[in-house]
């Protein structure tokens, strides 16, 4: 339930006073709300939980995690969050 995954901000846009980022997780990109990480900018890594970035991580630390995850094959598993577009109603 408290699953949160590090990803990298590729772009940021403002919509009705809310900062929304395009965030890359491995090979996948998702829309993420950045209101709780006002300091984070394009290129920064954030930890994302239920569509919200809850912290900004430094790149060195994020890369360390990714090297470990990659070495253990975790990136191919289902550790990434569900796509918002596909999650409305499971059949």
């Amino acid at each position, binding site marked *: *339930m*408290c*699953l*949160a995954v*590090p990803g990298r901000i590729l772009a940021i846009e403002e919509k009705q006073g809310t900062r929304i980022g395009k965030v890359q997780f491995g090979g996948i990109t998702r829309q993420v*709300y950045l*209101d*709780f*990480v*006002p300091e984070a900018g394009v290129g920064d890594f954030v*930890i994302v*939980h*239920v*569509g*919200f970035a*809850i*912290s900004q*991580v*430094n790149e060195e*630390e*994020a890369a*360390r*995690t990714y090297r*470990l*995850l990659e*070495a*253990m*094959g*975790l990136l191919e598993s289902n550790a990434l*969050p*569900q*796509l*918002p577009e596909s*999650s*409305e*109603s*499971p059949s």
Partner: protein
Amino acid sequence: MKFIDEYRDQRIAQALLAELHRRVTRPWVLMEICGGQTHTIMRYGIDELIPRQIELVHGPGCPVCVTPVEIVDKAIRLAARPDVIFVSYGDMLRVPGSNSDLFRVKAAGGDVRVVYSPLESLKIARTNSDRQVVFFAIGFETTAPANAMAVWQAKHEGLKNFSMLVSQVLVPPAIRLLLSSPHNRVQGFIAPGHVCTVMGYREYETLSADFHVPIVVAGFEPIDLIEAITMLVRQLEDGRAKVENQYVRSVSYEGNLPAQRLMQEVFEVCNHKWRGVGMIPQSGYRLRPEFAAYDAVRRFGLEDLEVAESSECISAQILQGLKKPLDCPAFARRCTPESPLGATMVSAEGACAAYYRYRRHTVLH
């Protein structure tokens, strides 16, 4: 096994494990609080890689598991109403109430929808203005800012057809309850990294000082957990009891202040019932009076629903670290993830469900 063999090849893991084996001189009982950490420990067999003297017990750290039966019953009652679209995180759909679950309500025609983020429930409310949209706002402190944002936006947009069924729980009061018990066996805690990402770890310093117990804030990958266990054992062997932060890449001392400000604006602390444990003082959040109009319990008049739990289930003792899943005669027999008797089997992150997935061969031949 593929994953465990590869994992044993990791130089970092080996180095940490080697130190752990060197440092340990006597038995220690450690508890991880978070169900995500329990899952990692079982999935990678960390409990079997660490020295035998170290026993890991599994805490009450799964908000799905500890959501009380009567709130699940309220969810089921709301989801069955023809005028309601009931919106939930996917984890809650299989969780049994006293007679049914949300999947069965959906199968019987209830409009139950799964979302990844709570803000999607607002979109559903905007595009279905003739229906009532109820969001099932469960979670620990990690999820509270996102849930708070949904109700905050609903209020500021003036969305009249949106409300929330809130079951928010807080970790430190549960740790305090465990440590206050005369039966407590836990000598060191692995604190939940994403809860502390939001809240920081000031509250854990009070716990550590009050009970003279070491606490290490940890992440969720195998190396994170092995490192945290090593840090706890160093402290225990040296007779120290303080809070240390292993998950530095995400957790700061103060936590996420913008998130905390929004949570405080929307929620206030209240007494809360935990499935399998009972009422824990000051261990939950409810909506503040300014947001009471968005409280689904109030909007739909569900205040009086009270129900009892299965008496066969030992999840109360498991959640407090007094027993482990394999101690239960019903485990993997009368109690399975498909037909769970209680809290710790209902969610994939529950201790019993994690054992069922990775260890049931040890009881079923």
